[in-house]
């Protein structure tokens, strides 16, 4: 269970204080597929950063399983991010001088998974997301956008995380490829029993998720079950 309580995030912009997350509270049960929608600047990406322990909230708590990640120290957060969270970004963010397989193996290396196991799981994940064997040795620059996003999804799943956070995963893809990527995420969440929270502009995609959170000016304005 992911439980967010009274989450506030403010930051300074010149002389003004911007409230990026304003007293947000919600929960997502394990294995659910949830989406966050809202206009640009509504605080979607900030919320995702906070959920992924990439940034610290000004106040409030985020409890994943039985641990409040806002109380964790820096080194604990590194471990938490590596083992419990998987990230999928809009612009893929693969390491450019590593091959597709090496990119997938990277989080496992940080989690100190033995090399043989890393290779085995890395190949298996890449096959699962639909990458051909001959594409596994290619660097990101030689893969299409859709293929890079598949590699990013495989990388996010590498350490069998409790939670996958996806920020506009289909934003840079054409409609057909975007739908394929979304379906892939959906099916993998079912198969791996992973909680997925996806930030999207696409209401059609949001409509297919188990839960949708609407944000406006940093506030959670509705919490709908699809």
């Amino acid at each position, binding site marked *: 269970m992911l439980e967010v309580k009274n989450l506030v995030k403010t930051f300074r912009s010149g002389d003004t204080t911007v409230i990026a997350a304003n007293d947000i509270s919600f929960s997502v049960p394990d294995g659910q597929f949830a989406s966050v929608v809202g206009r640009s600047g509504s605080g979607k990406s900030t919320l995702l*950063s906070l959920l992924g322990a990439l*940034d610290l909230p000004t106040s409030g708590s985020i409890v994943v399983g039985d641990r409040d990640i806002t109380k964790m120290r820096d080194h604990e957060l590194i471990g938490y991010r590596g083992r419990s969270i998987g990230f999928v*970004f809009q612009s893929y*963010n693969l390491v450019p001088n590593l091959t597709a397989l090496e990119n997938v193996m*990277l989080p496992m290396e*940080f989690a100190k998974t033995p090399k043989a196991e890393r290779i085995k799981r890395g190949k298996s994940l890449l096959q699962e997301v639909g990458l051909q064997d001959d594409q596994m040795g290619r660097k990101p620059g030689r893969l299409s956008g859709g293929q890079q996003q598949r590699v990013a999804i495989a990388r996010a799943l590498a350490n069998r995380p409790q939670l996958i956070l996806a920020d*506009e995963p289909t934003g840079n893809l054409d409609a057909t490829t975007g739908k394929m990527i979304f379906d892939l995420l959906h099916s993998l969440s079912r198969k791996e029993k992973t909680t997925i929270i996806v930030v999207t502009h696409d209401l059609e995609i949001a409509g297919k998720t188990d839960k949708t959170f609407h944000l406006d000016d940093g506030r959670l304005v509705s919490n709908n079950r699809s």
Partner: protein
Amino acid sequence: MNPVGRGIRNAFRNGVRTGAIVIILGLSIGLSLTMLVAQRAVENKIKSVKSSIGNTITISPAGFTPGSDANNALTSDDLAKVQKLAHVTSVAETLTDRLPTTGSSAPTFGKFGTGSDGGSSTSLTSPITLNAHGGGMGGERFFISGGEGGSLPADFSLPVSFIGTNHPANLTTDYSATIARGAQISGTADSNNALISSQMAVKNNLKVGDTFTAYSAALTVAGIFNTDNQAAQDTVIVSLAALQRLSAQGGVVTSAVATIDSLDNLGNATSAVKSTLGSNADVVSAQEEADNTVAPLNSVKTVSTFSLVGAVVAGAVIILLVMVMVVRERKKEIGVVKAIGGSNLRIMGEFMVESLTLAVLGAVVGLLIGVVGGQPVTKMLVDNSTSNTTTSTQFQRPGGRTFAANAEPNGGFGGRFDAGLRRNSAVEGLRNVKAQIGPGLLLDGFGAAVLIAILGSALSAGLIAKVRPSTVMRAE
């Protein structure tokens, strides 16, 4: 792939940039190494010169100038007081004079060794010939610069030097001379026995037992010595007492060398000699002479040390700027790696390896530059330094007589010529600095490269630590 492998791989992400960095870094490390080579070579030379100093004190008349009419010579009575000082084991006294060859015409400028009495001459002809337009003996160039508008007469030959000494063995040692024929003369006996060089013997067709004329007296060739020293080839050695008598300079001494019982007592003994002789004499210990001799090398050492530090700092700054640029360029990537579980330490390690890889590649290029450039650059620095400083330095003739290298016009030709010989000899000794690149120096070179890499990546490590993983989201 481990952080080391990834760091090395990162160093080659952009081949053109890596190549440019390696070349620039190579030049910097090469310059560092070249300066290190020069510094070590000069240090070794200084050490060698200082370790070879003897426990002696050179005494010469205060303000003595060649060709001067002033009678400012020392006397044997002065030196007898020195002989009695504590720690002084012996005093080798010498009297120097110069005689023109009988029948030789003197040029219209300068003073040309007319002898202490102004009229003596010798039947000997100097074995050294002179080219008035330069390009003289042994490849050396000697110029006539004693006056303006002068010229050499057709029958001119160089004056012959006469040295009287009470320790002829010391003198032959100073000249690196060996008695080839005949025997060593006595320094204490007042006899007309003389030692001449083999070149002088050939030039004048003399052999052991033959006689020649000087100061209107007949001198006998008691021994013939071999030497490469050109000043010595032009010199006749007789006993001190004999030259004082022949030149009518009873008790006069133009220089002396006092030997002290140990190096530990050299300083105190030098002070005692200075105090005893007062302003009558210039007293210089071997230690002071060595210090004066290596002064030009010390300036090379200083220049090379500053250049070394400058080059190392330049290398570190190059790496630092490159790594700062790389960190800024890869800020998003660092954020991603942190987001998926990479620790600061691990990412810093990768950048450190990348920096080290560039530095080691630069070191390889730098070592090549150092190996090729070490000796020529050292030689150039030493040559420049010695040629800049020796023009105003005094050099000592083996007999103990000191001449200013830039002798004043009154100094006369003989003095200038002799000083030139000694100068060249002293300078050549200093210039003979061997720059060698051994394993120790190579290790030092690599050590410098590692130091450069560590210094250069320190700031980038700080920047890496500051990159927050949320950077990756903001970049979205």
